[in-house]
């Protein structure tokens, strides 16, 4: 904060007000939701429009319809 506003004791007192903390579980849910949205944004660019390939631990058909891992 600029010194210009430090001279006022009431302004300093506002700076000393206790922080109001957000709900932790809701914060985590929001962060996860945004993380999923970011994943969706990133994947099309990485895959250039092709279906995503199955990860080794995925045993069901993905993208081209061919089963992976049997």
């Amino acid at each position, binding site marked *: *904060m*600029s010194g*210009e*506003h430090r001279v*006022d004791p*009431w*302004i*300093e*007192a*506002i*700076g*000393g*007000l*206790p*922080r*109001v*903390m*957000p*709900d932790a579980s*809701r*914060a985590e849910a*929001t*962060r996860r*939701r*945004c*993380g999923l*949205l*970011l*994943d969706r*944004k*990133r994947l099309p*660019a990485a895959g250039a429009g092709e279906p995503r390939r199955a990860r080794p631990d995925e045993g069901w058909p993905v993208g081209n319809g061919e089963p992976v891992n049997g």
Partner: protein
Amino acid sequence: MDGDSALVARLKAADGDAFDELFARFHPRLFNFLARLSRRRDVAEDLLEETWLRVVAHAPRLRPDTCLAPWLFTIARNLFASYCRSRQVDYEAAVGIHLWPVPAPSPSPFEAAAAGQLQKRIEVALATLPGTYREALLLVALEGMTPSEAAVVCGVSPDAMRQRLSRARALLADRLEGAASVRVARLGEVWP
């Protein structure tokens, strides 16, 4: 904020770790701002979630020289303004009466009580200020922004923001000192 450019570049690439870093840095600050602006926890939580969704939506289009704090607070502030419009709440008069959590304890009970009293008076005085003055004080005094950064958030010129801050300080001091003089007068009635 020169330190923002690397993080901005990563956000533009939809880097999840960059988002987590941004979230950790700003989530509590944005909540604090929205909660004191709206005076309602539930509204602040809703608006904050919407703020982050907007961040994700707009991150790929960020300019490389974006300063993140003013950008984030602008989104949050605009969402609150939209909320006021949609609910036909007068932005200038948006004052709710909600109790805040008890402040962290001070070293002694006397100091805690005195600090608590002062903080309560400030909270009440702040809550009764018109919205434009309240947001100016919150951004500069509580969030530590420069008047120029606060001006960006509120969509006004730096000069207009300085004027607004000056009026806000005067109004706040007037209300706080007015309340104090009333209390002294009452004490005088008890202790002649």
